């Protein structure tokens, strides 16, 4: 203040305004005290200029950079997630296709085996039937032969028996030709 008084009259006046405010003496309403305007304007110009420089050169690029970096990380992560989801979808699809293929293959295999088994069975059955038929035919032939033989034997037995019966009844041994004729007649009848 002493310095201010040492200067020109105007400066003295400016200091007086500050001093008046200091003393609490209400010379005027402080916001309208024009003596303080110059000081405030100079301070404001320096302070705001400084703030603008700090904000535009330092603060905003930094915060903007942090935000941009975050956005980039988010975008990258989202893209990667989308890619991974696509991969997993593709893998799932491949798995399902593979499963369907395997199922179809298994079914085809089962059908094939079943058909093969059926065919084999049919074949075995046919073979068996054939052999049975052969055996049957052989047996029938044997029976026929045996029967024919037996039938021949029956005639001789019948002739013998007839001769014996006639001999016993009449005491006369019958003529073989007559017996045979009688047998023939009897067999025909």
């Amino acid at each position: 203040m002493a310095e201010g008084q040492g200067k020109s009259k105007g400066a003295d006046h400016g200091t007086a305004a500050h001093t008046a405010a200091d003393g609490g003496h209400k010379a005027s309403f402080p916001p309208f005290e024009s003596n303080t305007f110059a000081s405030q304007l100079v301070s404001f110009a320096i302070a705001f200029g400084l703030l603008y420089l700090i904000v535009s050169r330092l603060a905003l690029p930094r915060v903007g950079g942090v935000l941009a970096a975050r956005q980039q990380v988010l975008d990258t992560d989202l893209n990667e997630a989308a890619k991974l989801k696509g991969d997993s979808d593709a893998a799932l699809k491949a798995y399902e296709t593979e499963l369907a293929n395997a199922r179809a293959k298994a079914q085809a295999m089962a059908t094939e085996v079943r058909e093969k088994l059926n065919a084999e069975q049919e074949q075995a059955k046919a073979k068996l039937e054939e052999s049975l038929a052969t055996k049957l035919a052989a047996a029938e032939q044997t029976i026929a032969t045996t029967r024919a033989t037996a039938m021949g034997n029956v005639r001789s037995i019948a002739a013998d028996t007839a001769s014996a019966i006639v001999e016993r009844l009449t005491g006369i041994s019958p003529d073989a030709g007559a017996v045979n004729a009688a047998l023939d007649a009897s067999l025909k009848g």
Partner: protein
Amino acid sequence: MADPIHQFEIHKIFTLGHIGNQEIAFTNSSAYMFGAVAVVSLLMIGGSAGRALIPSRFQSVAELSFEFVSNTVRSSIGEEGMKFFPFVFSLFMFILTANLIGIIPYTFTVTSHLIVAVALALMVFLTVLLYGLYKNGLGFFKLFVPHGIPIYILPLVTVIEVISFLSRPVSHSVRLFANMLAGHITLKVFAGFVTSLSALGALGIFGSVLPLAMTTALTALELLVAFLQAYVFTILTCIYLNDALHPGH
């Protein structure tokens, strides 16, 4: 009772020099201005120091202020207005910080001084005027000639437009200054009631509860006003800047 005007007084701290006959002093107001600058710088630079992917609370505040102002600028001026983003951001943060610091008891409110509000508003006004003329040339004056107005009332409308344009810095600055000043005076008056009532004895102390509650409520209101006035100043700045970029109505 405490003088409600006392808080607005400006004290010289030391002399910086002289311009002509006018003494230029570093005052308490200067200190609070640089204090606000320091707080904003600290918040923004300190907040972005971690560069964390998941921000801390501190970093979150810095990022929220950035995004709040950038969204305001982008929505009211558009992408080309982003060249004014540092300017608008400085304005918003300076006013908001100065207002908020002013709410703390025993502090000084920079924005409660007319000259500071006028300086802020004139800065915006001159930016709009000079940038508008630089960008659009004489086309800037289309701002005063709205489209689709019948020719016989066009002179009248133009005069009104010019007056409204010129009165912008007045309303712009007085709104901020008057809100801060009035709020702080009201706060001080009610706070003064508390002290003078409680000096009256037991009954006075009992009676001072009412103004104390009022002071508390007013402080909350002042917090809102501090933010709101900073925001209003910023949004008006954006609207005016939008005129400089797009003068046709």
